[in-house]
C-alpha cells in the first residue's frame, strides 16, 4: 500500500508552538506545581479585575523626585524612570495584558472554530480554498504578520488584539478542521447513519460536540501564546501606548535603564513568564485529563 504524501505533513499534526506534547504531561503528577499555577492565575485575575486590592496606588502617578529607586519598603519593586511605582504598574498591567490576550484568543478561537468547521464540513472546493487561505496567512511568521497589520492600522491596543487574533487564527482553524475531518470519518459518525439520523442532526449530535470538546484546552494554551506575542510586539513599540502599564511596554521602556535599574525590566518580564508558565501548566493538566477521558 502506498500512503500519499499529504497526511504525513498535514498541518493538523503540526504541534502548536506552545502545545505540550501529550505524553510528556502524561506521566507527570506534580500537584504542587499545578497548585501554584492555579493560585497565581487566581491572583492574576484579581489583579486584572480589581487591581486596587493588591496595589491601591495610581499606576500613572509620577514622582519626579523619586525616579529609579531600588526596591524598598515604600516601593516593593522600586520605581521607574518617571518615579512610578513598579509594583503598582505590574499589578495594573495584568488587566492590559490579560485583556489583550483574552480578546485576541477569543478572536482566534471563534474565527478558527467557525472557519475550521466550515472547511471540515463543506465540500472539497470550500475546504481547499479555506485551507489555502490558512496557508497564506501562516506563510507569514506570526510576528511579521502582526507587524504588517500594525503597519497598516497603526499601533495600539485594538490593532494589537486584532493582529494577534488574526495571526493565530489559522492554527486554531487547522486544528478544528483536522478534528472535524477525523470525527467525520470516525466509525461512530459514519455508522450513525444506520440509526436513521438525517445529516444535520448527525452533525449536530455527533460531530459538533466532539469537535468543540478540545477547544477550551486549546484556548487556554493559546492564551499563553497570545500574551507572549503581545509582549513581544509591545516591546517593539507596537502595542498600547505610554503611559499605559502594559508588561511588554514596561519591558521595552525599562530596557534602557537595565544597567542602572534592573527592576523596571526584569519584574514585568517575570510577570509575563509566570503567566505563560501558569497557563501552560494548567492547560496541560486539563489536556491530560481530557485525553484521559478520550482514551
Amino acid at each position: 500500500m502506498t500512503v500519499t504524501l499529504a497526511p504525513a505533513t498535514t498541518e493538523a499534526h503540526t504541534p502548536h508552538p506552545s502545545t505540550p506534547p501529550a505524553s510528556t504531561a502524561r506521566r507527570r503528577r506534580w500537584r504542587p506545581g499545578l497548585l501554584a499555577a492555579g493560585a497565581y492565575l487566581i491572583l492574576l485575575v484579581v489583579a486584572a479585575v480589581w487591581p486596587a486590592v493588591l496595589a491601591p496606588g495610581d499606576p500613572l502617578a509620577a514622582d519626579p523626585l523619586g525616579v529609579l529607586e531600588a526596591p524598598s519598603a515604600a516601593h516593593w519593586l522600586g520605581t521607574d524612570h518617571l518615579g512610578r511605582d513598579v509594583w503598582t504598574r505590574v499589578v495594573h498591567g495584568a488587566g492590559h495584558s490579560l485583556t489583550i490576550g483574552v480578546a485576541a484568543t477569543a478572536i482566534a478561537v471563534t474565527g478558527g472554530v467557525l472557519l475550521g468547521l466550515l472547511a471540515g464540513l463543506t465540500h472539497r472546493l470550500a475546504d481547499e480554498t479555506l485551507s489555502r487561505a490558512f496557508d497564506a496567512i501562516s506563510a507569514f511568521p506570526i510576528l511579521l504578520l502582526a507587524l504588517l497589520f500594525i503597519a497598516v492600522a497603526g499601533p495600539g491596543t485594538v490593532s494589537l488584539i486584532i493582529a494577534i487574533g488574526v495571526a493565530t487564527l489559522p492554527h486554531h482553524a487547522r486544528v478544528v478542521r483536522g478534528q472535524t475531518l477525523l470525527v467525520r470519518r470516525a466509525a461512530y459518525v459514519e455508522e450513525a447513519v444506520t440509526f436513521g439520523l438525517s445529516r444535520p442532526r448527525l452533525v449536530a449530535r455527533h460531530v459538533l460536540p466532539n469537535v468543540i470538546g478540545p477547544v477550551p484546552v486549546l484556548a487556554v494554551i493559546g492564551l499563553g501564546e497570545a500574551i507572549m506575542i503581545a509582549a513581544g510586539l509591545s516591546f517593539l513599540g507596537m502595542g498600547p501606548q505610554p503611559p499605559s502599564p502594559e508588561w511588554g511596554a514596561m519591558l521595552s521602556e525599562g530596557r534602557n535603564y537595565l544597567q542602572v535599574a534592573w527592576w523596571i525590566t526584569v519584574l514585568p518580564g517575570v510577570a509575563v513568564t509566570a503567566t505563560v508558565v501558569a497557563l501552560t501548566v494548567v492547560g496541560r493538566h486539563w489536556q491530560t485529563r481530557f485525553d484521559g477521558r478520550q482514551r
Partner: protein
Amino acid sequence: AAPAAEAAGEPRSGGALTWAVETEPITLNPHQYAQAKARLLVWNTFESLLTYDKQGKLVPWLATGWQAAPDGLSYTLTLRDGVTFTDGTPLDATAVKTNIDKLREPGYAPGVAAVQLRNLKAVEVVDPRTVRLSLTTPDVLILDFLASPQGAQVSPKSLREAKNLKAGGVDVVGTGPFVLDRYVPGQELHYRRNPGYDWAPPTAAHNGPAHLDEITYRFLKESAVRVGALTSRQVQLVEGVPATDQPLVTANRTLRLTRELNSGSAYSYYFNTSHAPFDDLRVRQAFREAVDVDTVLRSVYRDTATRAWSVISPSSPLYDKSLEGGYGGDAAKANALLDQAGWAARDADGFRVRDGRRLTVRLVQAAPYVRDRRDVLAQAVQAAVKQSAGIDLKIALVDQGTATQAFERNAYEVFDNSRADTDAGAALNLLLHSKGGINRTRANDPRIDQLLESGQGTAEETKRAGIYAQLQQRVVAEQALVLPLYAPADQIAASTSVGGVRFEPTAGVPASAYDLWIGR
C-alpha cells in the same frame, strides 16, 4: 573645549579607532543630508566653502573669503588654492557651480532647492578661483547654506559617474581629511586618512593630514548597547549617551564624558492656536505654568539637560537671555488662568472640563524621529499637567506618515520640535513664519512674519540680534506660542586614551575625526 587632551598626552599620528554612533545615515551624499546625527560623518570626507567659529561667526574654509554686494543681492567668493578632491579633480569655480546647479536640478534635492536656495537666481564663474551667487532678494541665510553639509563640495566627476548618487557611497568623493573606503550597510563605515590633505579650517586644532590612520564608525542604535560596548572596551568612542547611562561613564576612571549644546532651535512644545483650547492665550499660559520644567527635566535627564527659556538654543548668538525665569512652574497661576478661561469644572478623573468637553490636548510624535527620550519626557509632562492643573495631555507615538497626516488635518494641539540648524534664523523661518514649511502653531501674526523677514535680510550682527530678540519676546513672552523645554545637546563618551575629542563649533554636534588621536 577639549579637556580630554591632557589625559591622552600629546597629539600623535597613527592608529585606528572605533566609534559607535547611534544613527546609520540614510545617505552618504552630503547634498542629500537630512540627519543631524549624521553630520559628524559628513565632515570626514566632505567640506564646505565656509564654516562657523566658536562665536558663531562665519569663517573661511574652502573659500578664502566672500564679499556681499551692498544691495545684498549677490555674494562673491574666492576659492582656496591647491585643493583637490580625493579622486584628483581640482576644486575650482566650475566645480562649485556644478555642485550648486546640481542641487537645483529637479528631483535631485527638492528640499534644498525649495528652501535653502529659494532666493538664488544664478551661479556664475567669474574666474577659476572666483564664483558669484546672485539672489532674487537679500538673504543672509545663503551664507549659512554655504556652511551647511548640503553646501559641501562633491567632486564633479562623481556627480557624473557615481553608481547611486542619491545614496552616496565610496564612489561619491569630497575633499575631506578622510576617504571612505568601506561601507557595510547596517554595520559600519570605514575611513582611511587622506594623506594629501592640507586645508584644515581655522577652527581645527591642527593642520595637515589627520592624526588617525583609520577610523571605523559602527552603527549601534540602542544606547544601552553603545554604552555597554564602550564599558566593555569594544569601542573607544560613543556618541549619544542618555542621561541614565551617564553615571556608568562618569563612574569609570578610564572613560570621559563630554557634552555640548546644539545650535538652532531649542526643543519646545509648539501650541496649535488655530482651535480650542490653545486659541486662548490663557490656556497656553496655563499649560506652561502647569509644568515645572526643571523638575521634569531632572526626573528624566537627571541634571544633564540644560533648560531652555526661548525657542532659540542658549548656545546661539541670537539667544535672548532676558526671557529666563519669566514664566512657568506656578501651578496656582495655571489653575487660576484655567478657571478664568472657563475650564473650571472637573470630571471624575480629575480633568478639567468645559461644556462637557474635557481639556484634552494631543501631542503627536513621529516615532522614527523621537530622540533623547522625548517620549519619556512627554510622559513626564503628561503626568505634571494632569497633577497640577487637570490638563489631559494625550500622547500619540505614530509613524511619520500618520503624524504628517495629523498635522495636515489639524488634528493636534501640541507639536514638538527642535532644529539643529547652525543659524537659528533658518529654523525659525520654517517654524514660526505664517508661510513656514512647518508652522505648526498655525499662528498668523504679521508682526512675527515681519520680524523674521527683516532678520533674514539683515547682515549686520548686532542689528540682527536685536531683531531676533524682539521676535523671541513676541513669541515666547507675549503670545506664549511655545513651551521651550531644553537645549538639545550631544554627548561623547570616550576612552581617556583618545585625544582631540571635540564638538563642531556653533553646531554643537560631535566634530569629525580630523583632530582625534590615540595617546600612549
